[in-house]
Every structure is written in structure tokens, then in C-alpha cells.
């Protein structure tokens, strides 16, 4: 243990410094305003903070939804060891999104207005409520970790009885918000029936299925809603990325990066914490990743052909970034994973997984600002201060993950 902490300290020092720099820059941002500290303009009001911190950040959390679905819904019991780390990543991702939003919003002080003023025509309204409600569900999904650590037996007892009802209320409220009371009642009825069916036909271990389903549904809505946000700008976003099916594309790539991120993380955390994951879990994830990548590549190609017929509205720079995204982020890792020697080695799988993570981050940057064309305004590129704030927020996230894992039984087997 001593050896591990010693060998890690340079990494921790870098993370702490990056987080500290970002904190100082954030304080400066709240003194001088957004203009002086960023390259954002009236032409390009959204930049790296929306593209990377929020859009890519949320995509990287999709492992939580994917693994939860695999374990609880599709019976993939062998993946249980990666469930808690994946859920924790997801929860911290949502905490960080709110931190990042506070930096980016022009009137951060009024962020809570999103709760009281409703406009359910807006994709951003959908995004906002997905964040609030899915973060709540993630917190409930992770709560047993805290109960276990502090031996709260009373809470452990009532947890399986209360949490399904909370999730039923959450999902019905969500549906009501997005449409009307009628749909809300239908959701309430459906999820209540599901809960009763599970309750009386399945063993106690699966009492949480309704909670997990709610989480998956909200996460699916959230991942695709981030693509929906850009449906309003068909004439601004390059046709390399824009299509009416952008939300579906976002969902597929989110599931891909969710798997990749679990592989990526488990390799890193096994190095840091010394908990090695069984090879067959990693290999199983890699096999799933192959299929998802195949789907993502096909989907991209088909939508590109159908909606553009290979006539693009794009600059040279945009074509370059598109190719990097598709080749490095999707096609190369797909080919690498097809090679049995790579697919069957937990160590080698790390590299294609990393490429997928890179590719999806680049994809969100592409949709967020690189692919946007505004007449008569100089194209946006992030300046060093914006990049430092982004790095700092991600460092803060890694530090949180590290400390929570050290303190709580995240990497142990158990009911999550």
C-alpha cells in the first residue's frame, strides 16, 4: 500500500495543481466576466466548456447506465464487479456537469430557475431535467455503498422497499413534465405494474430492477437529448454531423464510450488500487464493444449517405476533424478489436478502448463548436485559460473518484 501511494504522488500533485489553477481561473471569471477569459463571441456563444465538459463529460458517464442494464436487466451477473465503479463515474460526471455549468452560465446565480420556469418545447429543458432526475436516481443507486460503510442496518432494511417507489415517482414526474398529466399517469401505471410484477415473481435480489430501469430510461433520454439540442441549427452545423437522427447517433456513441470507459477506467484503477479485474469481464466488454462500434460506424455511414448524398457543407478543417473522429475513434479500434490477440488480452484492449474515448470526445467537440459555421464571425477556438479550466474540472473529477474509492467499498463485490 505504501509503495502504491508513493508511486502515485506525482500524478496526484499534477491533478491537484490543475484543479487549483482552474479554481483560481473560475474566481477570476466571476470578477471579469466571460469575455476577457474566453474566446467566446456573439457568433460562437458555445465553446469548449459545452462541447467537452458537458457534452463529452456526460457521454463518458454512459457506462453507469450500460453496466446497470447488463447486470440487472440482461442477467449479466459476471459484470457486477464493474457496476459500482461505473455508477460512481456516472454520478461524479453529473456533479461535474453542474460545476462546469456554473462556470459557463451567464447568470449562474439563477440556475435554479430551470426548476420553477417550464418550457417543455426546449431540448435544453429536457437536458436539464434529465440531469436533475438521473443524478437523483444515481445517488439512490449508490446509497447502499454509504449504508454498508457506516453499517446503517435500518436504512439497509427499508432501502429495497422505498427506492422503487421513489423511482416510480421520478419517472412519472419526468414524463408529466415533458408532455402532460395523461402521459404522466400512464407512466405511473406502467412502472407500478412492473414493480408489483417483480415484487411477487422475482427473488429479493432483483427488487431494484424498477430503480435500474428508471435510471436507464432517464440516461437514454439524456444522452440523446444532447444531440437534440443541435437539431435547431440545421443551417449552422455542418452536414457532416447534422442529421435528424443526431440524437440516435449520440445515444449509440454514448453506449460505445460507456463500455470503452469502463475498460479504460478498470485498467487505470487496477494500476492505482491494485484490484485487478478478471480478464473474462474485460474480454466480454470488448466483445460487446465490437458490436456497438459496428453499429455506430454503419449508422454514421448510412445517415451520411441518406441525408447528404456525399454533398457536404463543410470546410477543410471540418472534414479533417470528421475523418480523425471516424477513423481514429471508430474504425481503427474496431479493426484492432477484431484481431484475436488483442481482443483476448486485457492489457491490449486498453488501447482501442482509449481510442474510442478519444473519438467520442472529439465527436462532441465537433458537434459543439468545430462543425458550426457562422457567417461573418471568426471561427472559435478555445484559448489556454478555457482549456485549463476544462482540465481542472476533469482533474477534480478524477480526484473525487480516487478519494471516494479509497474511503468507500466501491471496488468490492456486493449489491449495488
Amino acid at each position, binding site marked *: 500500500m505504501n509503495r502504491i501511494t508513493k508511486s502515485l504522488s506525482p500524478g496526484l500533485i499534477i491533478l491537484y495543481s490543475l484543479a487549483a489553477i482552474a479554481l483560481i481561473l473560475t474566481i477570476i471569471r466571476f470578477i471579469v466576466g466571460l469575455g476577457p477569459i474566453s474566446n467566446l463571441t*456573439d457568433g460562437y456563444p458555445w465553446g469548449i466548456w459545452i462541447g467537452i465538459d458537458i457534452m463529452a463529460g456526460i457521454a463518458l458517464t454512459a457506462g453507469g447506465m450500460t453496466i446497470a442494464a447488463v447486470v440487472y436487466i440482461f442477467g449479466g451477473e459476471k459484470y457486477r464487479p464493474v457496476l459500482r465503479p461505473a455508477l460512481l463515474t456516472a454520478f461524479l460526471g453529473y456533479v461535474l456537469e453542474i460545476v462546469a455549468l456554473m462556470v459557463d452560465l451567464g447568470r449562474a446565480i439563477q440556475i435554479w430557475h430551470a426548476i420553477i420556469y417550464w418550457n417543455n418545447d426546449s431540448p435544453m429543458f429536457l437536458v436539464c431535467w434529465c440531469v436533475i432526475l438521473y443524478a437523483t436516481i444515481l445517488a439512490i443507486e449508490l446509497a447502499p455503498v454509504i449504508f454498508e460503510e457506516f453499517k446503517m442496518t435500518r436504512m439497509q432494511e427499508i432501502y429495497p422497499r422505498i427506492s422503487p417507489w421513489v423511482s416510480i415517482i421520478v419517472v412519472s414526474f419526468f414524463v408529466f413534465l415533458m408532455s402532460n398529466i395523461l402521459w404522466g399517469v400512464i407512466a405511473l401505471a406502467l412502472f407500478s405494474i412492473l414493480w408489483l410484477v417483480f415484487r411477487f415473481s422475482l427473488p429479493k435480489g432483483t427488487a431494484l430492477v424498477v430503480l435500474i430501469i428508471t435510471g436507464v*430510461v432517464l440516461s437514454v433520454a439524456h444522452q440523446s437529448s444532447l444531440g437534440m439540442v443541435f437539431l435547431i441549427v440545421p443551417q449552422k452545423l455542418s452536414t457532416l454531423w447534422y442529421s435528424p437522427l443526431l440524437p440516435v447517433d449520440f445515444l449509440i456513441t454514448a453506449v460505445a464510450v460507456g463500455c470503452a470507459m469502463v475498460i479504460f477506467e478498470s485498467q487505470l484503477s487496477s494500476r492505482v488500487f491494485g484490484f485487478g479485474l478478471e480478464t473474462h469481464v474485460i474480454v466480454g466488454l470488448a466483445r460487446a464493444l465490437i458490436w456497438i462500434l459496428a453499429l455506430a460506424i454503419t449508422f454514421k455511414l448510412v445517415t451520411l449517405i441518406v441525408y447528404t448524398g456525399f454533398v457536404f457543407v463543410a470546410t477543410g478543417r471540418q472534414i479533417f476533424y470528421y475523418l480523425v473522429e471516424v477513423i481514429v475513434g471508430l474504425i481503427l479500434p474496431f479493426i484492432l478489436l477484431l484481431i484475436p490477440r488483442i481482443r483476448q488480452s486485457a492489457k491490449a484492449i486498453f488501447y482501442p478502448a482509449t481510442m474510442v474515448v478519444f473519438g467520442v470526445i472529439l465527436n462532441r467537440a465537433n458537434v459543439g463548436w468545430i462543425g458550426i459555421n457562422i*457567417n461573418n464571425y471568426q471561427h472559435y477556438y478555445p484559448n489556454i485559460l478555457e482549456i485549463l479550466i476544462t482540465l481542472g474540472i476533469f482533474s477534480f473529477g478524477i480526484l473525487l473518484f480516487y478519494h471516494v474509492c479509497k474511503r468507500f467499498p466501491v471496488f468490492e463485490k456486493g449489491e449495488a
Partner: protein
Amino acid sequence: MNNNDQMAFLYDSTKCMGCRGCQVACKQWHELPAEKTRFFAGGADSGYQNPIHLSEHTYTMITFHEVVEDGKLMDWAFWKTQCQHCLEPACASVCLVGAMHKTENGPVVWDSHKCIGCRYCMLACPFNIPKFEWKKVISDIRKCDFCADRIAEGLLPACAKTCATGAILFGKRGELIEIAKERLSKDPEKYYQHIYGLEEAGGTCVLNISNVPLKHLGYPDNVPMEPLEKNTQIDMAAISPAVIGLGAILGVTAFVINRRIELAKTKEKGGQNE
């Protein structure tokens, strides 16, 4: 209210002499400060006007463009850029707190008390109109508000009131469309035969006519002819059914698979007992 009963502008660039009285009147009425400008900062592409772009301090502005055809300078033309006050504004549809909204008689206005500063309206606007107070700590969205306060008192909007040549007409949208059509048909040689704002972005409350295509003068040439909201509406309407459908599918799947695992387990146990 019927679209054609909404209050609207008709800007006729052939009547405009580029005096920028409207620009000054707008600044006076809204008490907007001056901006530091530089000659020819925008160049031929963005236009020779000052400042180059609208901003939080400039809600309307006359753009100055050279119209060049076959390498020859054909004309020196103007366009009044400002919020077009769409009939179905994209900015209002995407505002999650409903701060940006369309009023019944035409103006698209915003309520800073509600705004959280996400700047989605700026991204969504096909005319790139909403601007942001970049240098403030708590920033506001700013744009032309159609002088909604003046209209409510029965006054003309500041720019229309001050216009010396009658290039800016103010009135009911339906009546202004008739005037525009009449001008176009009476003088087909003089006018480029298109009323900008009749269908752009689903129709706007600012109508523009000119002797040259407005794309030469800064009017975005890629504005879709239907409300942009249509692109998000279908997906937003699909959310509730999708959530319920997915919930049902996942529920049934979970039931079937877990039930099967359960049966396998009891079978195993039974086998051991025997």
C-alpha cells in the same frame, strides 16, 4: 392573433440613404452606450459599417456593402440588420425557462429576471441576433425589442419614427406585405423580386425588399423556409411515448431473463437434492 395582424416593419433598401438615424434613435431610446469602432474593420465581406456586428450595445445597424458583379462595382447598398421578430421564433422555442418569448402583437422580447444565461437562443437564432454582455459578471441577453414599450403606448418604434426617407414602414404585417408586393410588381426593373421575411424561418415580422439579393448585404443566405422549431418538435413530442415504450420493453426483458435464471437455479437445487 392572426399572423397578418401582428405589428411589423417593412424595410425598403432602395429608399434608404444610409444616414443611420435609426441606429442613433435606437441607442437614444434604449440608452445604449457608444462603441469603440475603427474604419473598414469589417472589410468587404462583413461590410463597411461601424461597428461590424450588432452587440449588446447596438440593437440595429445599417450595413454598407459594395455590390460587385463581374469584377465591376455595380452598386453601393444598405440593409438594416436587427432582430427579425419571427412568427415562430427559434430563440423562444429553445429557451428552457421561457425567458425569451413572442408577444401577441409581434415583438419577441425577453425577461432577464428568468434568464439563466445559457446562450442557447444565440446559437438557435438563424439570423444570429441575440447578443450577450460578455464583460459583465452577471450577464444579460440583449437584442432589438421592437420598442415593445413604445408600441404599447401607441408610439412608433424609435427607428421607424426617425427614418427621414420612409425606408422603414411600421404597421400590420398583412398590410405591409401588400405594399411590398405592389412595389415589386409596379417596378420590376428596380426591385429584386423577393420579399425577405415572408417565408424565411417560417415568416418574420420584419419584411425586407431591395434592388439586389440581400445575401450581398449581410442577410444570411441559408435561412430555412420553415420554422426551425419543426426540427426539434418531433423529437420532443416523442420523448414521453419513448420513455414509456422503453420502460415496458426493459421491464418485460428483465422479467423474462430473471425468471429464466430463477428457474435454472431451482432446477439446479432440485438436481442436487435428488
